[in-house]
Each structure stands twice: as C-alpha cells, then as structure tokens.
C-alpha cells in the first residue's frame, strides 16, 4: 500500500470506522512511514477533540468507586502473578474452537423431542456439555498451557420462575493468559425469544461486566446461543445474569464450581 492510498483512508482511520481488512495494511504502513504517521497523528488528535463535543452528563456517584475498585483489583491480581511471559492468546482461541466443536448443537435434539423422553435427552446433553468442559480443561492442561494457577469456574444457569430454558457458564481466570468468559444459553422457549436481545453480564462484589448480547436471530432453532469475551481480569466475578429486552431476568446462576487446572502428574 502506497502513501496516496493510505492517506485516502486516514480520515476513516482517525474516526475509528475503517473496516479491519483496510485498517491492517494502513497500520502496517504507519509503522515505517514517518510522513503518513505524522498526518495520522494530527488527524487522530483532531478527531479526539470531537469526543468532547457531546453534551456533558453526570455519572452516578458510585461510578468513581467502582472504577477505582476495578483498577485496584486488577493491580492486586497482577502483583500476585509470576513474571513468566504472557502466552499467545491464539493458543487459547484454538482450545476454545476445539471445545465448541465438541459442544455442537445437540440441544436441538432436546428441543425437537420435548414431548417425548425429554428428561433423558436433557441428561444426555448435560453430560455432553460437561464432557466438553472436561475436554477444555484437558486442553488447558496440555504442555502449551500448564500454568498451575489457571482456574476454571463453572456455573449452571437456571430460568426465572416464569421462564424456561437453561444454560451454562465458564470463566477462565489465568495469571499468564488473558481471562475469558463463555456463556451458553439453551432451550430458550419460543415465547421468550420475542424478548430478545438478551444481555449477559457477570457480577462481582461491587461491579458488573458485560459479556455480550444475544440479538434477535442469535438463537438457533433449539433456542441455543453462545457469547464469549476476553477480559483483563475476571477474578471475583462469581455470578451470571441474563436479562431480556425489558431488563427482566431470564436466566441466572452462580459460578460455584472451582476447578483448578493443575499440571499433569509425573
């Protein structure tokens, strides 16, 4: 990519709306071209000025304490970590892909056979999900990972009194790779799907993190969907709440099972 092409894209780059496939070559060019980098920097500074162009609003009084608490927790966690280099998150993504391949969409069979032998199918699918989680743990336990301080927390999501469906949640809390949360929702009844999008959040002692949203059309025929997100720090976030478009709780659960991922024995 030459300078003319790059400069043609710098306005969008500064505005943060350049599609990734166009942004990556621009970023590579900026690493070595000082003239374009200067232009990009000037546009970036001008664009950031626009951020102050929105009418000001006052946040809730407790936001400052939540921010300070979140940063202090992250610092405390970092200070407890060993100094080993952080490993590539690509390795973790490969492990997740393997887990998802194992999970599949077996809950479709459960929903398709709701009227017949449903309990047995649910049990089978629950076992299948547990097997997938075990597989994920095995992957974490492989030589590529093997950090004895990695921890996996598991939880089961239960429906609110008036709802249906279920789900499971997994958080990976690691001192050496980036933390991650995965929330699986399944068996959401047809009538509840009208209340999409759902928001999925993790709750800690005094703060909340958004894991993601399940949009309209984000559930498959069996009412199953998945959200996942990487986080800098997930320690202490021990419950999951899924809310519908009206803010009512659809599913919730606690991360009660603590499964330390230890290195394989000799």
């Amino acid at each position: 990519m030459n300078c003319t092409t790059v400069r043609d894209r710098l306005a969008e780059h500064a505005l943060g709306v350049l599609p990734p496939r166009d942004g990556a070559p621009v970023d590579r060019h900026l690493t070595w071209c000082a003239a374009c980098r200067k232009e990009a920097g000037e546009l970036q500074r001008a664009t950031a000025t626009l951020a102050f162009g929105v009418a000001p609003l006052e946040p809730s009084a407790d936001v400052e304490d939540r921010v300070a608490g979140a940063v202090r927790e992250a610092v405390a966690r970092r200070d407890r970590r060993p100094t080993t280099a952080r490993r590539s998150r690509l390795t973790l993504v490969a492990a997740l892909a393997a887990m998802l391949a194992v999970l599949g969409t077996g809950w479709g069979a459960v929903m398709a056979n709701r009227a017949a032998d449903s309990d047995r199918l649910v049990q089978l699918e629950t076992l299948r999900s547990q097997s997938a989680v075990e597989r994920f743990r095995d992957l974490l336990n492989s030589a590529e990972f093997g950090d004895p301080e990695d921890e996996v927390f598991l939880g089961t999501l239960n429906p609110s009194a008036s709802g249906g469906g279920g789900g499971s949640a997994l958080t990976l809390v690691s001192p050496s790779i980036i933390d991650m949360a995965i929330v699986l929702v399944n068996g959401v009844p047809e009538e509840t799907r009208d209340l999409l999008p759902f928001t999925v959040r993790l709750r800690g002692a005094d703060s909340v993190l958004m894991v993601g949203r399940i949009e309209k059309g984000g559930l498959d025929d069996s009412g199953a969907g998945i959200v996942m997100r990487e986080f800098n720090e997930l320690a202490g976030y021990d419950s999951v709440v899924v809310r519908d478009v009206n803010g009512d709780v659809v599913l919730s659960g606690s991360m009660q099972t603590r499964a330390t991922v230890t290195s394989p024995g000799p």
Partner: protein
Amino acid sequence: MQARNDGPLLPKEEQQLMEGLLAGSDDAIRALYARYGRPIYSLGYRLLGTRESAEELTQDVFLTAWRKAARFDPTRGRLSTWLMTIAHNLAVDRLRRETGVSRPTLVLVDEVPDAPGLDEEAVLIERDAALRALSSLTEAERRLVARAYFRGMTAREIAESDGIPLGTVKTRLRSAMIKVRKANEGKELV
C-alpha cells in the same frame, strides 16, 4: 501523589499520573477520574444510549488505560487524546456488536445551555476546541462526521444509506476532517 484538579496538566504531570495508575495508586486513579471520568461517561452515554452501558464503558476505559499505561508517551500526544481515543474505540466496538439497538438522539455540546461548574477547567478548554471544530463544518459535513464518529458508521454504510458513491463519501469525510484539524491549529490545548 498530589495531583492538581485545575488547569491543563504538563506532560510531566500526565506521566506521573499514568505511573500512579499503573501502580494502582488510589490518588492517581481518582485524579484521572476527576478530570476525565465525566467526559468519558458522557461520550459513552451519547454513543451507547443507556446509563448502565456508559458506566460499564467508563470502567472498561480505565482498566484498558491501566493495562496500556506503559505505552503512554506524553511526548507523542496528550493524555486526553489518548484516553478519549480508547473510549471511542471501545464504544464503537460495542456499537458494532450491538447492531439493531435503538440509540438516543445525539446531543452535541452546542445544542444545550452551558452548565457552569460542571467540569474542570481542562475539560472546558477541550470543549471549546470541540465547539471550534464543529462550527468549522457545514451542516452536511457535521451530519456526516457525526454519523461516522458518534454512530460508528463506515463510509460504505453511509454511502449505501444515502445512495451516493463510496468515493464521494470518502472525499467528503476527508475534507471535513481536514477542517476539524485546521480549526484548532495553533491553539494551546490541554
């Protein structure tokens, strides 16, 4: 750490605050929040549309700033630029994940009465710069920039929405951003 709460910060003071943030100093975190918490929250609310999302964004911005604190170089740019760029990028990422959600009407700073005493002097200086930038644009340019910056729309999305060639949108965006840049050339900002 003693941090001033009034007036623009010197590069050395910005560096000290970021070092304090990296170390988890409560004083540094709160000094940064006092200066930038409200503008970050306001940007988040105007882009994302709910107080809850804006509060989550504010927390995410400070955590991201902590994680990247070692990369902040005051000789290459101001702290306000760095923080607001983080805030904008995180908000646009979220906007793209949450397609289809209704957004509030965008309210820019020159569309509301002044709120004296609401913000630190440093933020007021930045707001003046934003006013200069916005007033340098024609109404059409202002609408175009707002759709890109405050709605996260790509040039292609704008072109398809308006039924005009992509090249035209790119040219207009570039022209508008050059005006925004020139509006504050030579001005001493925070």
